[in-house]
């Protein structure tokens, strides 16, 4: 079974659609959405309808910090741009969309895999798993063989070492990496809707459970059109620049 993993979609419909059709062409049979479905981008309802449709067909969905902030309006831990985008989203989002977000769990588990937006150690604290220490903490919080998360917007793969440390690896797009269950793995799947590693192409990962491999992909999409939509929506210009440059 091939499972497509998308995180940090951020109301960027074209980027999400590009990832989903790429995944379909590569044999994805199931989907997991790892939070931050909304925020930053101009198409919250469109993206949520798409995700809810997959959820109805069995996809896993967990909530992220932007999703929670859109539901409860609490933005005090966010920077000004993020908070402004949350306010914008709260004004625009449909009641249907809001209810979908309000019903999202923070953690999901299926067989030997755990799905969470940020760190599994404290899912609600929105800790960035951006170094080996944080990765080791998140791995230690469960007994799952594979932990899949987002939040960082930069793809990474960690594995637990015998000393309970975590080793970091920067994945190369398109290479199927063996992630055999004889050790434990944590993957930050990168961001579909707002990459921040200098490559503006949408990012997602495909997990092949039977072969025990994980492949990270970069999918080019019409970034210029997405940038124009951000500007047309009156969202902060910084968010348009971020999409354009991928950082």
């Amino acid at each position, binding site marked *: 079974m091939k499972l497509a993993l998308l995180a940090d979609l951020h109301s960027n419909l074209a980027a999400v659609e590009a990832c989903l059709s790429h995944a379909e062409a590569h044999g994805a049979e199931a989907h997991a959405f790892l939070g931050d479905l909304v925020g930053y981008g101009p198409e919250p309802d469109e993206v949520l309808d798409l995700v809810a449709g997959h959820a109805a067909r069995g996809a896993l969905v967990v909530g992220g910090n932007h999703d929670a902030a859109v539901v409860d309006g609490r933005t005090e831990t966010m920077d000004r741009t993020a908070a402004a985008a949350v306010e914008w989203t709260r004004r625009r989002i449909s009641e249907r969309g809001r209810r979908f977000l309000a019903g999202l769990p923070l953690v999901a588990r299926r067989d030997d895999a755990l799905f969470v937006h940020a760190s599994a150690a404290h899912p609600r604290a929105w800790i960035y798993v951006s170094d080996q220490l944080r990765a080791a903490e998140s791995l230690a919080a469960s007994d799952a063989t594979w932990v899949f998360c987002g939040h960082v917007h930069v793809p990474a*793969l960690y*594995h637990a*070492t015998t000393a309970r*440390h*975590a*080793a970091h*690896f920067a994945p*190369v797009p398109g290479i199927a*990496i*063996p992630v055999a269950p004889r050790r434990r793995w944590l993957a930050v799947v990168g961001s579909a809707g707002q990459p921040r590693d200098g490559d503006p192409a949408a990012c997602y990962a495909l997990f092949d459970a039977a072969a025990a491999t994980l492949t990270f992909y970069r999918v080019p999409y019409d970034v210029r059109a997405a940038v124009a939509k951000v500007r047309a929506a009156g969202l902060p210009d910084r968010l348009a620049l971020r999409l354009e440059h991928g950082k």
Partner: protein
Amino acid sequence: MVGGFRVGERLHAGGMGVLYAVSGRDPGFPLLMKVPRLGPGEPGEAVLTYEMEQTVLGALRGPHVPRLVAAGDVAEQPYLVMERVEGRSLKEWSDRAPLPAAEVARLGAAVATALHALHEQEAVHLDLKPSNVLLRPTGQAVLIDLGLAAHAHYPDLLAEELRRPIGSAPFISPEQVLGIRGDPRSDVFALGVILYELATGQLPFGAPTSPAGLRKRLFRDPVPPRALQPTVPPWLQEVVLRCLEPDARARYASAAQVAFDLVHPDQVALTERAGRLRRRAGLRELLRWLRAAGLEPTPPPRPTAQLSTAPILLAAIATSHGNEAQFEALREVVSRLLAQRGETRLACATVVRPAPELGGSAEEAASEQRIKHLVLLRHWAGPLRLPPGRVSFHVLEAADPAAAIVDYARVNHVDHVVIGAPPPDLPFKGLLGTIPTKVALEAPCTVSIVRPRGGR
């Protein structure tokens, strides 16, 4: 029977595993099975190196590594079935060292060629030593035992597990001693140790058994080979000591460049290294620099990223046809390509017909012809103002110029051939093909065909 293979005689029992001859499937070549030692009391290292070897070998192609045929599940019955390479171990040669310079160069070039093939595929061997090199009857080298290798496409399972330096003490590079894995220039260092041993019969850093002994190579030069073996020519000492520079940046930037120098001893640019008869002092500074840098193992560049800083460029210059506009256009393109990359090597070559016997000494005529064309090549390259180590000149004698250029490019791991376009008025070129089009079709690398402005 294991995994559908009939297990035959035991071929070898080493520290990490046991090798058996196997049969059962017929891939068209003989097979062996490598079974790691995983029993109680055995080091966990054996599992890690088994997994790394499976991953790296599975990702590599070509004649310079054994072909992987099958692998058992590590959780149930770990084994690797691979090509049983028919060849002799380089250990047979190193045991007979010191060897004549020509033989050292031949063996070294074969190993460098195999290393370059690995590096081009994003892998670094990191455990290169004579017993891990097999030589096929054709002279081609095969690198075996990739359990300590690193591959830029896959997570390094060993880096975080083993806090002590891993590899074979006499051969590992200073950066490996510091725990840095993945730099292709680490293999260039190990190649230097092999060349040193083949040329002198001795190991440049001995076989230290303590961490302090290992660290000595960070700041202590080896005794120059010529001090031990006066018959070692200066060019070979130059190559060996450049491979053994403690700072990776001072070594050859690629194994292909080592192979190039070993194949063309007359083109090796001799520096102070070539004449050295005693150790250099003052290397402590390097150690201080390394300490100041915090010894933080920074990830080295991907092997191909490192190689891309050091391509070999071949300028094919038709010195027999004095076409100044063509020469100028070629120089402009070459100079643009040289400007992009730090350590590009430029090989300037021309092809001349074998000297006909015109009475007198044929030998003399050939030599005169060679010198005349060398002068023309040097004249062509003069305005590029390249330092001696970056440029070389070659007069190839052949009846078929295109074949000679393609062959040269293949043997010398050339990354890019730059060649002049045929003149527009050449008759029958559509029918017969031209030298540049033949080169473009058959060369193993990128080919640029250069046309002077307004030349059409």
